[in-house]
């Protein structure tokens, strides 16, 4: 029977983040203080209740955790120090694992060692390939370039798309909300918008600066992606592309640096607690930006031939990023968030149809 309460679940959740949400006495403050809650979109209290009772299947249907941008108001004003904000973060991790059909992201969240091993394996693989190709610069750079390309295709088709569909199944199909087909069409554009701007963040008070940082990182990241993969930054001689590459790369590693500092200083609620995977994500993003930047510098200064190891390093980081972090880590959040909004809009219009709202 799936509505049997299970107090042990909350313990298993501890792997995904900081514990002790039993402190919550259900005063409802968090839900009411949150600027993003709305009719039909109630969080975090309801999710706290569901997880306290350990109703996992119900929890899996919840899109609310993706609606939260972690401004920390709920945690600041919680009368029991139950830290609802961090709970939302933890649930996002738990859901990511839930959606992922390979089960790898769950594994990485739960055990740090397995994550490290995975990283080493990838690194070794790259080095081995390097051997096979006798460290021939042109070959390897060609390989690297095509690797990037296939990685994106592969990850997208094999993991991200299926996971999105799993998410769709858990949150919309299973709970049987008859969302009208039209609502998916109409919602699509806002989906794209949200995906790249995450503009909803701005609804939180005192979040605009963070949003801007975040936005620039995304721009920089996507820019770098396009420039290296499709405009072959390392191969091209087109000055414009080269400079564009420099700018985007710079953006990435500069702003990731900022983000890292804010995590270290633990200023806001958001940055108080960091899961190991958060660090991996941000550091690798930073390294990617940095190494890419340096590689191009070395190319332009003609140093690369003598210091080809640099490209190897870049390639390793790139592979780890693309194969491990993108499909199984925090990277997916920006997909899930946008789709969550997309689905929940569909849901609400479904409920409206039923007259439940």
């Amino acid at each position, binding site marked *: 029977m799936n509505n049997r309460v299970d107090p042990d679940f909350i313990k298993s959740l501890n792997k995904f983040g900081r514990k002790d949400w039993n402190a919550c006495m*259900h*005063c409802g403050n968090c839900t*009411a203080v949150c600027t993003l809650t709305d009719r039909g979109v109630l969080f975090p*209290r309801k999710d706290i209740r569901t997880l306290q009772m350990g109703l996992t299947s119900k929890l899996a249907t919840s899109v609310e955790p993706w609606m939260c941008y972690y401004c920390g108001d709920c945690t600041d004003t919680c*009368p029991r120090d139950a830290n609802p904000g961090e709970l939302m973060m933890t649930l996002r991790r738990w859901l990511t694992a839930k959606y992922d059909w390979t089960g790898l992201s769950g594994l990485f969240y739960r055990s740090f060692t397995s994550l490290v091993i995975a990283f080493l394996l990838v690194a070794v693989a790259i080095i081995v390939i390097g051997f096979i190709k006798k460290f021939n610069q042109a070959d390897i750079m060609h390989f690297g370039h095509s690797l990037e390309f296939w990685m994106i295709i592969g990850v997208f088709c094999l993991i991200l798309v299926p996971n999105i569909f799993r998410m769709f199944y858990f949150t919309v199909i299973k709970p049987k909300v008859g969302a009208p087909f039209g609502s998916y069409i109409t919602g699509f554009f806002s989906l794209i918008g949200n995906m790249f701007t995450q503009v909803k963040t701005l609804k939180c008070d005192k979040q605009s600066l963070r949003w801007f940082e975040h936005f620039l990182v995304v721009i920089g990241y996507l820019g770098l992606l396009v420039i290296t993969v499709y405009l072959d930054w390392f191969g091209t001689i087109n000055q414009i592309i080269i400079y564009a590459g420099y700018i985007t790369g710079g953006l990435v590693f500069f702003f990731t640096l900022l983000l890292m500092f804010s995590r270290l200083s633990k200023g806001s609620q958001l940055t108080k607690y960091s899961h190991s995977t958060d660090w991996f994500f941000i550091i690798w993003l930073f390294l990617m930006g940095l190494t890419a930047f340096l590689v191009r510098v070395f190319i332009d200064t003609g140093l690369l031939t003598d210091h080809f190891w640099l490209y190897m390093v870049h390639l390793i980081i790139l592979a780890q990023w693309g194969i491990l972090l993108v499909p199984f880590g925090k990277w997916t959040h920006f997909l899930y968030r946008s789709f969550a909004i997309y689905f929940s809009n569909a849901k609400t219009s479904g409920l409206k149809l039923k007259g439940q709202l």
Partner: protein
Amino acid sequence: MGENNLTGIYFCFPKNGNTDVVDISEVASYAGSIPEVTVTWHSGNLPLTDINSLAATIRNKSIKRIVIAGDTPGFEKAFFTKAMVSAGNNPEDIVLASFREHGAISRADTERAKAIVACAVFGVPFDLAAAPDESDVNTETLVIGGGISGIQASLEIADSGNMVYLVERTGTIGGHMAMFDKTFPTLDCAACILTPKMVEVGQHANIELMTYCEVRGITGTPGNYRVTILKKARRVNLATCIGCGTCSEKCPATAPSEFDEGTTLRKAIYIPFPQAVPNKYLIDADSCRYVQEGKCGVCAKVCPVEYCINLEEKDQEIELTVGNIIVATGFKPFDAKKIERFGYGRFPNVVTSLEFERLINAAGPTGGEIVFRTQDKKGNWIFSPDSNKPKSIGIVHCVGSRDENHNKYCSRVCCMYSLKLAHLVKEKLPDADVYEYFIDMRSFGKGYEEFYERIKGEGIHIIRGRTAKIEEKGRQLMMRSEDMLNDKLIEQNVDMVILSIGLEPRQDAKEVAKMLGITTTDEGWFNELNYINDPVSTFTGGIFIAGTCQGPKDIPDAVAQGAAAASGVLKSISNTKIKQSVKDLTLDKIESQAKQLTNI
């Protein structure tokens, strides 16, 4: 005792980070030196987990009795009981040595902690062993605080024919109760039931009423305390003032009325409220022009009685000697400004429950009309009878209470008075919508639950969900809350919001405690000798606590406590002997007395 009755002592370490606590290891080493004790052990800060190994130890060391010592060792008892049973022992042979119970809280109390452990080992109740010597008692009593508890205590003692000095900080007795309109759950008006008692105090032959006075210092010993009292300059002669009010009429200076929670203005020379006891005027130095600027003095000129008003009067100090002291200093309301999200102080029509009590009171600033707060010519925000009436009112429970960010504790009365206010609003404005937001409805007393049910039936919207913030929406106020029982988010627009503010210790509670030589909780509530069965005595002989200064309380409980404290006093008067302070007992004395008791 002896071989066949070996005792093991387990020490629990305090779990919270507090550092100024009893030195457990010192107590432990002391305990080791007691012959009857075979083994002492403690888990450090780890919680106990393995019952079987504990049972094994008990069996191997053939321990027959166990003493669990620590701040609140009871939390571990069930664990030990089980272990004892599985070790084949009698679970009755577990004794708690609770430091907190007997007032050993800080490092300074380590000696007493040892004594507590000793008594537990000897199997002697601590309060029997820790019996202080007795001495003669002065039959006169000092009562500090003229609220309902103080009044009750004074009357109980005075009726026995013994002298009572009732010292009150303000110009009249009555305390907070006098400010209330009705009282829950019977809804009889506070003034009607309180003022006769106040008059009784004023006229009682055995009560010397000392209003507008403050206790400044206390010396001496239980049964014979010397008290220094500051008699603040009232500038009006209590004996000759006939309360005609001419002075007040003519007085040009005004100030916010304390009695009306500043919701209206009073003159510089005033009677706090019509039924004040003593019903005599007093001059508030801070707002009196003569005192401040040296000119004016109209009151003295218009006063029909000669030499009644003396603007030059100065504060003076008085000495008293008393045998017992009852502390009934009461509480102070929580400052709603501390919670910015509720906008108290920014939005004029967010009012505190106490302000509302005055507003709705037939003898209040508007004669009981519920109106909006408006600004007078001088720019003071006041309630004036001629302003408009709200059509909808919201009530927020637990303001400042049950909140880690403010006061952890529950203020005990807010739920009920909020229901009462809701009812009164409906009574005065039948068409008004009333919305009440609560967390847990704590209607626990006699007739309280029935009252709750009655209110539910009066068309008041009672919603489970703490209001998180209040924002101005046009001319109205928007209250944002989650209605969790109906799975809804509510953004309710209302005309006026009542914040049900909690109770706090008086700001000077800790200094007062220091002066009296009694202890307080971290918040500042006075500590009782034993929370369970001696809630009014303290560790200092001849000093008793009554009413809300010990912790939040409703009127019946405060009254009961006032009387209970009086009984402590009458006890000593009646057998002409008073117990000295428990806190002054030395370890040796308690030890030896405990030994004596075991030999009996």
